[in-house]
């Protein structure tokens, strides 16, 4: 599973810590998702998409 979180975060000028806080997870989880080492649950994926105001297919690719 690939994702564009790093790009979207950079576009918004958001740090990993900011995103973690808004998604309600730890910074380590955001780092792992960005690196593709951890596949988030559907709930967390939707939360991340909501932060960026994007559809799930615009953030995650399978």
């Amino acid at each position, binding site marked *: 599973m690939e994702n564009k979180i790093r790009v979207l975060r950079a576009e918004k000028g958001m740090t990993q810590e900011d995103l*973690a*806080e808004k998604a*309600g*997870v*730890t910074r*380590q*989880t955001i780092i*792992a998702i960005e690196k593709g080492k*951890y596949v988030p649950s559907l709930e*967390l994926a939707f939360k991340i998409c909501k932060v960026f105001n994007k559809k799930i297919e615009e953030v995650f690719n399978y």
Partner: protein
Amino acid sequence: MSYKTFKWVRIFMAMFIAATVSIAVTIENAYLALAAVIVGMISMLLIKRNVKEVLVDEMVKSIAGKSALMAYSITVPVLALLSLVFMFSNLKERGSDMYNLGIILSYIALAQMFIYSFFYYYYQRKYGRDGE
């Protein structure tokens, strides 16, 4: 309180408990050891409440679950094997310390299996094993 501060406080508390328990063992005072552990546990609970950042999320829980399964998969067979070795190597001396140790280890392995089965069944029911 930030997560960084919490990490330092956690290390300090662990050191405090370790030092107090060591002193308690040296002066042979079980109450002091017990008090240190209880004070440490209560303090950690109170401190955790003041941490504003997220400490546990789905990835942490996932890692914890995998670690727990791995720990279970290793400890139960090892305990069972050790208990068999202790019991069968001391069959002629039933009631000896080593034989009793084997029995104790086998009961610990059984208790772990029971706890694991109980929670496995509980979570299976919680998440609907029949697909209902």
